[in-house]
């Protein structure tokens, strides 16, 4: 875990209000695993005082990693305005990350909206581990769709759905999942990330189909390192902190409110 200044190498608006930053930061890039996140000071100016958590989107090499984020409020707005070559104050890598069991052969990744961010990193790791996978992505509309940068040689297929049907099938990620399970071989495990209603729906589908399922959760965070207890979620084994006990949890352990 480092607290460090990371230089911004590139910045790009990859879809409507969705930005990608690549950061030079060997301390984090060399050790991070998929599902982990970084805690970023989004404005030096102290108009907002707390950091904001973002998943690591891709590990480019030992020195560089990327984040992908959507502008939703003042912190992300300010982050979208940073300049290339300036530095960000970052703490990371944080959290537990996605665990891929050895006997996993066939995996399904399910993303809702910006939930795609950590799954790209995971897909790349799956590819390296020669585990086959498919990707289901639900988005609001085609303008919000982020390219899922699979290398050509990757085995995974990507399926899209949009709420308005402007790309892929019409519907949300859960619809897409239902449909996919109907037509395809049952995966060994589902990894999902996205808004809470979608995660709930995915969990219940996984339950009904008896598929192991892991979710990356989001909660508002202050410290990001387990001290403030702001980010708890209820689980079968009591309150857990999303920042250190998660953000990835076994879906069947979560007690939804």
């Amino acid at each position: 875990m480092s607290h460090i200044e990371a230089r911004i190498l590139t910045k790009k608006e990859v879809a409507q209000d969705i930005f990608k930053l690549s950061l030079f930061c060997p301390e984090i890039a060399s050790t991070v695993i998929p599902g982990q996140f970084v805690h970023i000071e989004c404005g030096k100016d102290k108009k907002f005082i707390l950091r904001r958590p973002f998943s690591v989107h891709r590990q480019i090499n030992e020195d560089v990693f990327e984040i992908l984020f959507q502008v939703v409020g003042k912190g992300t707005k300010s982050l979208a305005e940073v300049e290339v070559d300036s530095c960000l104050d970052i703490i990371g890598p944080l959290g537990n990350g996605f665990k891929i069991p050895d006997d996993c052969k066939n995996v399904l990744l399910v993303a809702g909206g910006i939930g795609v961010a950590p799954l790209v990193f995971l897909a790349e790791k799956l590819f390296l581990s020669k585990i086959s996978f498919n990707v289901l992505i639900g988005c609001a509309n085609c303008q919000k769709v982020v390219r899922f940068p699979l290398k050509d040689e990757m085995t995974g297929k990507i399926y899209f759905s949009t709420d308005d049907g402007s790309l892929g099938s019409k519907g949300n990620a859960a619809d897409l999942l239902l449909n996919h399970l109907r037509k395809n071989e049952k995966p060994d495990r589902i990894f999902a990330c996205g808004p809470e209603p979608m995660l709930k729906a995915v969990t219940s589908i996984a339950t009904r189909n008896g598929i192991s399922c892991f979710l990356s959760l989001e909660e508002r965070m202050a410290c990001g390192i387990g001290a403030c207890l702001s980010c708890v979620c209820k689980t079968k084994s009591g309150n857990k902190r999303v920042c250190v006990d998660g953000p990835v949890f076994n879906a069947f352990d979560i007690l939804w409110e």
Partner: protein
Amino acid sequence: MEPSLSVDIAGIKMKNPVMTASGTFGSGVEYSDFVDLSKLGAIVTKGVTLNERLGNPTPRIYETPCGMLNSIGLQNKGVEAFIREDLKFLEKFDVPVIVNIAGSTIEEYTRVAERLSEESMVKGLELNISCPNVKDGGLAFGASVKSAVKVTSAVRKTTRLPLIVKLSPNVGNIVDIAKGVEDVGADAVSLINTLIGMAIDINSFEPQLANVFGGLSGPAVKPIAVAMVWQVSQAVDIPVIGMGGIINAEDALEFFLVGAKAIAVGTANFIYPEATIKIINGLREFLKKSDFKNISDIINKVKV
């Protein structure tokens, strides 16, 4: 010669006057990657109750202009697990540990105090009678002189440990409360706890916190905290521990100048995990630069 930062707060000897504010530093373990805990003046742990508490539903925090609201609601694993796990971990550091205690009844306060008094690791108790985040979390005790005095004197009888009473700013008469708890044996007072606040999501019409109300902390409250520390430190003879919005050494200096004998760093830990250490270094630099030999040379030295 290096200036001396050491202070003695109610018999607790500290290398420097920089403590952690309860609830913002976990039990210390969470920050040990960033901070050499042995370098701190003291660690004040998060609030401990007799039995485990689950706290409030989420969202528990919300950011406000130069501040934050929290409604953690005293989540903690109870005094026995605290002793077993958190105190145990802190054994390997050379730093005084002060335990912040809370309760719903006077009996709960006294039982927690009694239990902690058996532990040699515990160097002091901080009585949280000012948590705005649980209906029965002590705010009621901190709201009037009478009830503050009652719980303080009850705890006083059960422990010989230095007893710090943490005061609420959500009152009209903080000075009277400070004097009241001094009279019944408090060894120090600490202030301020958080101010009652609220924020609304104008899209969903829902409060930003599941608990509706939360406690405001951070730079936004600093001027209020400085005023209260000044008022209280003029009125009592016991040491005053100042806190509320301290981010850097300059902020800390304001509190010393108005009479704080030590300060605590809260919300700043979330922003910069090393905030405490930076403040200690900043204080040392300031004393050096200004040719003061001792931190006590600036305590209560505001020119009014």
